[in-house]
């Protein structure tokens, strides 16, 4: 697959999508929906090796390199976190490793989800991004 869109392009699309939401309910319904639609992770990767430590829910991220691009798959036992996994996969999947590592990902703040980056043990987004960038760094 050729990748037409850059990370920035996809971030802008999400910013546009989220700008349509007027209430917190709509935003979270979108995330819950994203979580429900996320392709299931191959059970072979739902192991301790792929589990991200430090989250209140279980989060698994699997990554592999193909034709110079990094591909991600992931899962969580919590549906909103699963939505966040889906969101990050939407943004970072099938991109060059270097782009992933260097992405500032400031769209998270713009779409009003920065509370999920808070440094508490209960929020998985920060750990998730760190893992995806680390994987990209290794694969790149």
């Amino acid at each position, binding site marked *: 697959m050729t990748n037409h869109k850059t990370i920035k392009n996809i971030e802008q699309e999400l910013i546009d999508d989220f700008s349509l939401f007027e209430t*917190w*309910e709509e935003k*979270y*319904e979108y995330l*819950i929906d994203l979580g429900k639609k996320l392709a299931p992770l191959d059970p072979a990767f739902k192991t301790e090796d792929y589990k991200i430590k430090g989250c*209140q*829910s*279980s989060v698994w991220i699997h990554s592999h390199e193909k034709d110079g691009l990094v591909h991600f798959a992931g899962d969580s*036992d*919590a*549906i*909103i*976190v699963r939505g966040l996994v889906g969101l990050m996969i939407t943004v970072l999947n099938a991109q060059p490793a270097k782009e992933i590592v260097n992405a500032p990902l400031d769209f998270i703040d713009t779409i009003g989800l920065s509370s999920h980056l808070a440094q508490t043990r*209960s929020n998985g987004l920060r750990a998730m991004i760190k893992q995806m960038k680390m994987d990209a760094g290794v694969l790149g």
Partner: protein
Amino acid sequence: METEGTYDVQAIRAQFPILSRKVKGKDLVYLDNAATAQKPVAVIDALVHYYSHYNANIHRGLHTLADEATATYEASRAAVMHFVGASSTDEIIFTKGTTESINLVANAWGKSFLQEGDEIIITSLEHHANIVPWQMVAAEKKAILRVIPIDDNGILDMEAFKSMLGPKTKFVSVVHVSNALGIINPVEEIIRLAHEYNAVVLVDGAQSSVHLDIDVQTLGCDFYVFSGHKIYGPTGVGVLYGRRDLLESMPPYQGGGEMIKEVRFEHTTYNELPFKFEAGTPNIADVIALKAGIDFINTIGKAVIRKHEETLLEYATAKLKNIKGLRIIGDVKNKVSVISFVVDGVHPQDLAILLDNQGIAVRTGHHCTQPLMHRLGIVGTTRASFAAYNTIEEIDVLVEALNKSLKMLL
């Protein structure tokens, strides 16, 4: 708003500045009191007053500020003594919190008196703070850590406990009230049985100190520990009550200033109780403000607050049970105002996120009791815990928000 009999909950709420703030545009509904209680203005004022008027190091200075700070600090110790029914201020040691109190005992008592093959007994309901320090000292002394099992409702298996007791039992460290489930353990019976084998007993009062009447002499425990921040006091201050003869037999936990009588390079003699265990400049401001927290409870009366909390617990329990798929964990009679629950097919973290967006603070997760969650076969629970200032209306808000959240998730 409501006034329940003579209990004027609005007058109590007015003493807590934080309760008038908004969260995500909604009125804050604070139901995470088992994690930490909010602070009445008297506690906040005590901190400000200390730093504004008589901040000084205590016990050694010979000036007016030092005299005032020392007298107020020691008045707090006396208040704590009465709060737990101890007979002397010598038996009240100030620490950073429950965790440090337990670590102090595990280190100072455990390392001196435990021997290879000795047994320490804890329960399946313990917070990590009453597990890990004992694992550490047990590993060092080659002692054995044993755990009293529970049934599926979280009730301790006392027959199993009786069968564990023996000449090897040296220490029993038990949680008075489960932080995860709110269950009150039969500590009087545990203490009595353990003492038949001359075992020393520590009661973790982190959750019980704010709800139950505590009299360490009636209980007969050897140590009782709790944190100031859960009894409406500041963070960073906790208490270790210890029986005088035990505290005297224990070596100091940390060395430094304050805890010494005389220091020579060849030899140091230690200060007397309680100062032997309070090395360095203590947390003067927070200790002083702790008294304001205790005064807050005493002014209303613990029994009066408890009655209010029981009303809230009963109301919330009935309301929550009406929610389809919701199961209360530890649904027993003998408990404090804590409700821990799970909902079929719903992860507690999802609930917490959606409730937070509706201004509601509850705790979700394993509550620092991973072995308990493992035993119950769950990843965690959602926990609502009530305090003196919570209202029936707030429970209605919780129930409505829960229903809305579940509709979004399922």
